[in-house]
């Protein structure tokens, strides 16, 4: 038992509160900023209590966009959603299948295959960005959803996560399936997939946020404003050459950009934690 010591408790809470403030204050500021007009923010005297421009800001951002970008945030959100979901599901599909192959099939160079996948962990998108760009451009995938999604799908992280999980599943389950007349596909569909649900959920949360927050890759391959994602949209709103930055709209967009990941985390939190912590027996 931990002893009850008021001073220690106080210090612990104090530290935690300071940490929370450090993280949460900028977010709070963004939310507040999304409730004022441009002038209030620009003159540097923005109050810390909500203003009265909330509805105007959000409807303008969603359906009209900033003065310079002129691209409704709604469209960007749809783009981001398609890309994030595409990356998340694509990664899950690719990594669960490759982990299945690596764990359950004996084929020549199985180990090599695993290590090659493992090594790609050290090569993030940024490192291989030029060749990847070249390939995507040659395939004519610039400014397409496929171009945004496909290069980000290959995932060593997911493969590793599923591999670790598959290794905890007793060998006898596979053998019992064999005797019960289930082939490789049936075993995957009837046993492995249902058992992997929590791992899939965990991976989905991670990869959805990863996909949603992609910046460099969409920046490189999208030129049409109708294809841009919300993260790019924010960036474009902030850098204006000849007009004042519309901070209120930029902040509104930033707040809108936070909503889907937050919702995903909130609704999948239970499964997510289970997937990372627990291995179901």
């Amino acid at each position, binding site marked *: 038992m931990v002893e009850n010591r008021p001073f220690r408790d106080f210090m612990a809470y104090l530290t935690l509160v300071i940490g929370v403030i450090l993280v949460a204050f900028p977010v709070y500021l963004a939310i507040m900023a999304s409730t004022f007009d441009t002038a209030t923010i620009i003159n540097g005297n923005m109050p810390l209590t909500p203003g009265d421009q909330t509805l105007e800001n959000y409807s303008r951002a969603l359906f009209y966009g900033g003065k310079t970008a002129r691209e409704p945030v709604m469209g960007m959100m749809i783009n981001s959603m398609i890309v994030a979901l595409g990356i998340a599901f694509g990664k899950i599909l690719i990594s669960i299948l490759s982990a299945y192959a690596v764990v359950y099939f004996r084929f020549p160079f199985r180990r090599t295959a695993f290590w090659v996948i493992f090594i790609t962990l050290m090569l993030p998108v940024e490192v291989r960005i030029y060749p990847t760009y070249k390939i995507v451009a040659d395939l004519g995938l610039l400014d397409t959803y496929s171009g945004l999604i496909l290069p980000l799908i290959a995932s060593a992280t997911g493969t590793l996560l599923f591999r670790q999980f598959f290794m905890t599943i007793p060998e*006898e389950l596979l053998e019992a399936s064999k*005797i*019960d*007349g289930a082939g490789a596909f049936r075993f995957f569909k009837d046993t492995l997939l*249902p058992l992997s649900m929590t791992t899939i959920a965990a991976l989905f949360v991670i990869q959805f946020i990863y996909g949603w927050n992609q910046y460099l890759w969409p920046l490189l391959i999208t030129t049409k404003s109708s294809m841009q994602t919300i993260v790019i949209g924010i960036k474009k709103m902030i850098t204006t050459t000849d007009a004042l930055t519309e901070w209120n709209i930029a902040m509104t967009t930033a707040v809108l950009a936070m909503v889907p990941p937050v919702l995903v985390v909130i609704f999948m939190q239970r499964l997510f934690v289970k997937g990372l912590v627990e291995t179901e027996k």
Partner: protein
Amino acid sequence: MAGVTLDTVRKIYAGNVEAVKGVSLGIEDGSFCVLVGPSGCGKSTLLRMIAGLETISDGEVKIGDRVVNQVEPADRDIAMVFQNYALYPHMTVYDNMAYGLKNRGTPKDEIEKRVKEAARILAIESFLTRKPRQLSGGQRQRVAMGRAIVRKPQVFLFDEPLSNLDAKLRVQMRVEIKRLQKALGVTSIYVTHDQVEAMTLSDKLVVMSGGQIEQVGTPSDVYRRPETRFVATFIGSPPMNILPGKVEGPGRVSVGGQVITVTDMRDGLTPGSAIEVGLRPEDVQAGGAGSSSLSMDVDFVEELGATQLFHGKVAGADFVVQASTGQIPAETRRLTLSVDPANVHLFDPQTTRRLGKA
């Protein structure tokens, strides 16, 4: 129904490790065959080869009249019960039992009929909608057996199915397995390292060691007439005492200078040559001064309730005597043991084989 025939079956793993070294065995239709031996003796590998979970390196496995070397496990018409039960954790008890039938395309009402029937036999009807993790070890064990029964297979295979249960439940399930097998009359092959399970369950007992069969017989054959020293010391608890001895003449051997007579002794052994004398702890009597007697120095006594085990030395070798409690005073330091000539087992020190009458 079908018997199982093994013809010089071998298993050679990568790196030339021979786990099973040419085993030939006939298991009659409807009989209960137990493979017993210490860990690593190849008994599980042999069972898994019959199941089709391991490839057969050499030799032939027949189920009924069909050679099954190249047949998939699902098509061998067998059912297997695993040590850790291997129930599908995400399926209900009903689905666990129905899964194999579903994959075979059995009609739904037939599946239901068979599952219900198996559940009734095993008294698990009230758990059918539960998941395996909501069940106790004994209940899971029943579900695993139910999964085997619904298939109505030619052969049941059991891979140490009771090892994960506590001692009391193990005894109970042992009896149930035996009863079930007798009722269903399905050929069964059962692997265990527990010699009590082996003795009580089997019609045919197969003792294995080092990838080979040491002896095949009924449990009482194997107990009464062990063919090798390994079998003699492996079957029976506490294990048989082995004493160094010398051949004195026909039907006579000596241990530490004391001569005992033997009924089952091979003719023509050279007097003076070394021989190993096996005596079961339960076969020697304290007291009495017959023609065959040995003296024993007692070191300590183990109390087992109904019986007592006297540990000590005879002719310099460790020796254990089992006696009913109260028969010998516990403080006895020196015992005179009388030996029934019919209960003496003789083994060749070199080959370790039995030196009984041909």
